[in-house]
């Protein structure tokens, strides 16, 4: 194992933007004494510590769990969301992946649907709005049901679980050449359409989530599959295909009864 006492010096070009109303720009920073064992976010912590000591404004960035499961960290590193490493969130990128003397460009996750708030933080509430449009099951849950009460075939459970792995980080949107949120949206449509608990509301969910997705400034899918390649949870565009099927079925066959027709 490489000695942990070797430290690195890095040249950083970081996007600084005071607030959403002003133009931002890339600013050069040099950070020394970076340990190869540090995570990318810890490296930014070190830089921020230096900035604060100098009385400068620290770099604003999103982070929370720092163990790759919360979906909060973002950052486009050297032009790739989460750094472009396979199945890796920014917090799980370690500095040993870089060499001393490297120049690293750090920008926020960019898309029309993700306006910059400050520096590297962006407003990702658009994906919450897509979720609120139908990414749930309406049921009086009561106590936890027996795990075996609703039998679900293993392959179906596996496929649903693959989709459920989405942490809603928005890397799919940031990496998509079209700024589309299709992978995120489809993961939830697909996951719930596969499961018996989600099936009753599947058509309404597909219609509402697609409608909301389209109205928030996300682009359209061109099947580049850049999202699939970038997704830290390795979610496949198969789920986009399933959501497309669900949406088509719903658009042509689903009818919600109005009050006069005896509906709620």
């Amino acid at each position, binding site marked *: 194992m490489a000695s942990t006492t070797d430290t690195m010096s890095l040249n950083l070009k970081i996007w600084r933007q005071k607030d959403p109303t002003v133009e931002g720009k890339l600013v050069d920073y040099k950070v020394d004494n970076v340990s190869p064992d540090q995570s990318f976010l810890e490296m930014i912590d070190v830089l921020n510590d230096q900035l604060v000591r100098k009385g400068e404004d620290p770099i604003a960035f999103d982070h929370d769990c720092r163990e790759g499961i919360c979906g909060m960290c973002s950052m486009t590193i050297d032009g790739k969301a989460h750094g472009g490493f396979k199945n890796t969130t920014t917090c799980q990128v370690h500095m040993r992946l870089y060499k001393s003397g490297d120049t690293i460009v750090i920008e926020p996750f960019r898309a029309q649907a993700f306006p910059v708030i400050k520096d590297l933080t962006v407003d990702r509430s658009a994906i919450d709005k897509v979720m609120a449009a139908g990414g749930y099951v309406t049921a009086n849950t009561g106590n936890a049901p027996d795990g075996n009460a609703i039998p679900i075939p293993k392959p179906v459970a596996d496929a649903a679980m693959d989709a459920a792995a989405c942490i809603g980080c928005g890397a799919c949107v940031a990496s998509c*050449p079209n*700024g589309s949120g299709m992978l995120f949206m489809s993961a939830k449509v697909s996951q719930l359409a596969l499961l018996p608990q989600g099936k009753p509301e599947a058509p309404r969910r597909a219609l509402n989530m697609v409608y909301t997705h389209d109205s928030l400034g996300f*682009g*359209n899918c061109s099947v580049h599959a850049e*999202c699939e390649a970038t997704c830290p949870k390795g979610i496949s565009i198969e789920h986009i295909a399933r959501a497309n099927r669900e949406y088509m079925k719903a658009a042509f066959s689903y*009818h919600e009864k109005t009050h006069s027709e005896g509906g709620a």
Partner: protein
Amino acid sequence: MMTSAVNHYFRSSIGRKHLVGITGLLLCGFLVSHLLGNLLLLVGPDAFNLYAHKLVSLGGLLYVLEAGLALVFLVHMYLAVRLNLENLRSRGKYAVKKRTGRGTTLMSATMPYTGMILLVFLVLHLMNLKFGSVYTTVVDGTEMRDIYKTTMEYFASPVSVGWYVFAMFCAAFHTAHGFSSAFQSLGWNHPKYYGKVKIIGYLYAILVGGGFAFVSVWAYLKGV
């Protein structure tokens, strides 16, 4: 919104992608029939002229088919342009942007450009051949247009052949991404079959693009 779900379908991202996919696959089918017709050039002037004459003899039916084909082209182009303009607005404006290398391909990234080149090609192609110089010939006692002569004359020019081969290269590039993507957009992505669909798409691109290019080069080498 619920009551107008079908209405929304034709304005939604997915609904419009479905239409681009369906029209794209129809155009793929058209290209195959067009190529089969072109291969009659290799058989001889009479075979090619008779085939063209049979098509023209369809009369009213041909106009209906041509109108249908034109509609398919227009829907495909109109929606593709609209969707691409929306995508340009939606994309993130990065100072530095790189691909992962595991997603976007040169084929997928150049779809709007190859599409625009093919549109220019289509207009010139109709002008030069269908609405090009008119000669007449007699086959089996029937007077008909000598479209064979028009075609061979056109391909006698190295500039025409060069442009044609370039356009067919673009067509191959366009369909190499478009063919399998249409399946994905229409929801036909199954882990067992999608790999094969992609391979069929590449084979289609090579065979059809290469087929057209081959016929044009053959015509050039054969001379008028």
